[in-house]
């Protein structure tokens, strides 16, 4: 259910609706009787609540089912290799549904010391490169107004997916390798 007072403009519209209803109640009370005004006010309140209930139910039915159960379309992207941000952005955009999309980018750090114990010296450099890649991708997505965050992960993509899946119930997985 959406917050009916999520913005000032929305609150102002509600004020106008209440004002219009109040004017009719005043007319009923003054032209007929206070009891008539009270009955009319009750009718308006009940009708309003019924309309809100029906609208909320209709909204739930219209929203596509998502794994998170909240109507948000979550996309997880595994960016294993260095790609231009444009490739990543185009791939992500092609998966958007327009239903409150959220994107999580998993960026594996390649050349981990555990993959190759002799590579410990270059690990820090790999992490930094992966971080830069992630930040550039996030900036590119942000410029398109896409809500996204990123995580640096180990080189095992299955492990990375497993861990991210605990907090990010992805509806779609994109692998860029």
């Amino acid at each position, binding site marked *: 259910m959406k917050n009916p007072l999520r913005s000032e403009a929305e*609150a102002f519209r509600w004020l106008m609706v209440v004002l219009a209803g109040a004017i009719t*109640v005043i007319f009923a009370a003054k032209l007929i009787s206070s009891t008539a005004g009270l009955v009319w006010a009750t009718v308006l309140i009940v009708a309003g609540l019924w309309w809100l209930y029906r609208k909320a139910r209709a909204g739930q039915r219209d929203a596509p089912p998502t794994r998170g159960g909240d109507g948000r379309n979550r996309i997880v992207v595994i960016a294993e290799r260095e790609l231009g941000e444009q490739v990543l952005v185009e791939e992500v955009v092609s998966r958007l549904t327009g239903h409150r999309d959220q994107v999580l980018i998993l960026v594996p750090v390649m050349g981990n010391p555990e993959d190759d114990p002799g590579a410990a010296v270059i690990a820090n450099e790999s992490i930094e490169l992966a971080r830069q890649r992630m930040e550039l991708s996030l900036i590119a997505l942000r410029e398109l107004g896409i809500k996204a*965050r990123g*995580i640096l992960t180990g080189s095992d993509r299955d492990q990375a997916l497993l861990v991210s899946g605990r907090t990010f119930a992805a509806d779609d997985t994109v692998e860029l390798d």
Partner: protein
Amino acid sequence: MESASISLGHGDAHGHEHHGPPEANQSSKMDRQVLGILLFIVSEVMLFGAFFAAYFFLRVVVDPITWPPNGIELPVFVAGVNTLILVSSSFTMHYALEGIRRNNHRALRLGLGVTWLLGATFLFIQLNEYVHIGFSARDGAFGSIFYSLTGLHGAHVFVGLLLLTFANIRASRGHFGPEEKNHLGVEVTGIYWHFVDIMWIVVFLTVYVL
């Protein structure tokens, strides 16, 4: 590698590196600002609901059934004019917000200033009404609930005026901008102000009209 140790860092869409303690966990189901405003409004509705319930309960059980009691004459016309003043202040509040959305700082300052003046006028007239109304909160159930209900609303108007004061000061210093995140202080104040107006319309109908 253990799954717990593979997350080496994270960033967000703002592109800033995070310093200090980790960010607080956030439910993915609802934005925290939206949730905050929603919970606040819901709690306020329940607070007013309790007072309205008390009002109607007293109105039903009072003996003899004369409401308001004989000898009490409510200044409906003055309260009606006061209602118009408060409703007008919502229009000026909306004008201020529309102004800043179009990057019109003059409209923002004018709208906020007039809103503050109208709100203060409303509060002054209500206090003046208390002085001249001819009964007090100790004069029976009607007196108690009348002052409780209108006083509760008056307290909300007072809080709204404080928020508007801060918004006016910030507007005069040029703190607000056309982007939504840059005028959140006015946006939230506007939501609160409209809510207070809606509540007054209900109070006015309940106490003065019905």
